[in-house]
């Protein structure tokens, strides 16, 4: 009987360990219908860059603000400035920086670190 119980306990331990590994790491619960505010930072950055590119097409800063509300950020101009400065300091792709600097400038958030990226001709025909 002891042999049976010991084997059962060992089996339980192994099964539990494997179950938790699979459930938490290998196949964790994947949520759908998530709010945009939970979007990973890299995707929030991407979204912001895309909106900045849209701003360069229509030059409509209010439209850009409206589109960025999707991210449920309280202070959008501050957010755009922060992202732009982070892009510059982390040497993100120049194209993205230029888009973001243009949007920052439109929002009245042009800072000295952004100056070199103003009015630079990038590939693309917008504007």
């Amino acid at each position, binding site marked *: 009987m002891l*042999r*049976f*119980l*010991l*084997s*059962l*306990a*060992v*089996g*339980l*331990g*192994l*099964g*539990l*360990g*494997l*179950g*938790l*590994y*699979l*459930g*938490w790491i290998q196949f*964790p*619960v*994947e*949520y*759908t*219908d*998530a*709010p*945009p505010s*939970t*979007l*990973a*930072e890299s*995707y929030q950055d*991407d*979204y912001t*860059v*895309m*909106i900045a*590119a*849209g701003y*360069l*097409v*229509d030059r*409509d800063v*209010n*439209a*850009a603000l*409206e*589109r960025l509300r*999707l991210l449920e950020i309280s202070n959008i101009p501050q957010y755009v400035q922060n992202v732009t400065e982070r892009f510059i300091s982390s040497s993100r792709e120049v194209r993205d920086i230029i*888009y973001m600097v243009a949007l920052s400038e439109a929002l009245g958030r042009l800072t000295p670190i952004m100056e070199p990226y103003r009015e630079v001709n*990038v*590939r*693309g*025909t*917008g*504007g």
Partner: protein
Amino acid sequence: MGYDLAGNQPPARESRYRRPRSLVSWSALLIGFLIGLGGGLFYAWNINPVVQIDTQPWQLTSRARAEYMAAIALDFGYDGDLNLAVQRLIELRPQGDPFQMLADAACQLATSGYVDSNAGLQAVQSMKLLYQLQGRTGCADTLVAAVAQPTEVILSLPTPTPLPPATKTPTQVPTPAPSPTAAAPIQPTVPVQSDFVPPVVRTFCDASLPGIIEIFVQQVGGEGLSLQQVRVRWNDGDNLFLTGLKPERGPGYADFDMEAGLSYIVDIPGRSDPTSSPLVASPCTTETGATSITSYRVFFVEQ
């Protein structure tokens, strides 16, 4: 065959009572493992699941996904980078065709209050442009008007002549009632008609395709139009050629090799406006760091 002291016959050689007993009960181990596995998964998935904060675009709500796609289209509208747009659309894990997913999302937004604002309207227009260029259609095609706005016509209405003040002495001859002067009908000013909407120009930089103008002449639905005469002009020359001579690229396709440093204008003679700005064969750097010459894609879409 010997007997023990109690007079019992010993077990046969192949009997399990003669084999050494295993330390592990395999059946108990298996039962325990299965119970543990089930319990572990139940705990990890239901009782204490991973709290996900860094979600991906495909996990967003349907509406947020649609707005994310609008942003993709806006970005494409500026830089014309189709590969990047496709990559971003694929991150949304489409069930089938990513461009049809885009068309469906545009339809969803066009049937909502999203298009009540200019921002929304422009975004849906961008989505339309992107999926129409890929030959897809959606309900936004009809729900959202084309970019071109009707010409505003100011009509001058007839000015009524005021009645003269009444005289103290009435006269027998009645004053004829003033008759409004009918203004000559004003014809609305109609811009010069073109068979195509203004050409859309996209740039790209590819080391394997330096300084090329790729021309796509399409119907509204995206179907290519073959044997359309296209003209490319530069400082001291021009060249006329037809679409559809490279059938592997589609019936509405044609291309032209630019010379580095020169500027070019493309149009369909007599049927379209020329490209709004010169296409300059300027040096560019590819995403991999290689140097090349800027190339262009010019889209003529029938209106």
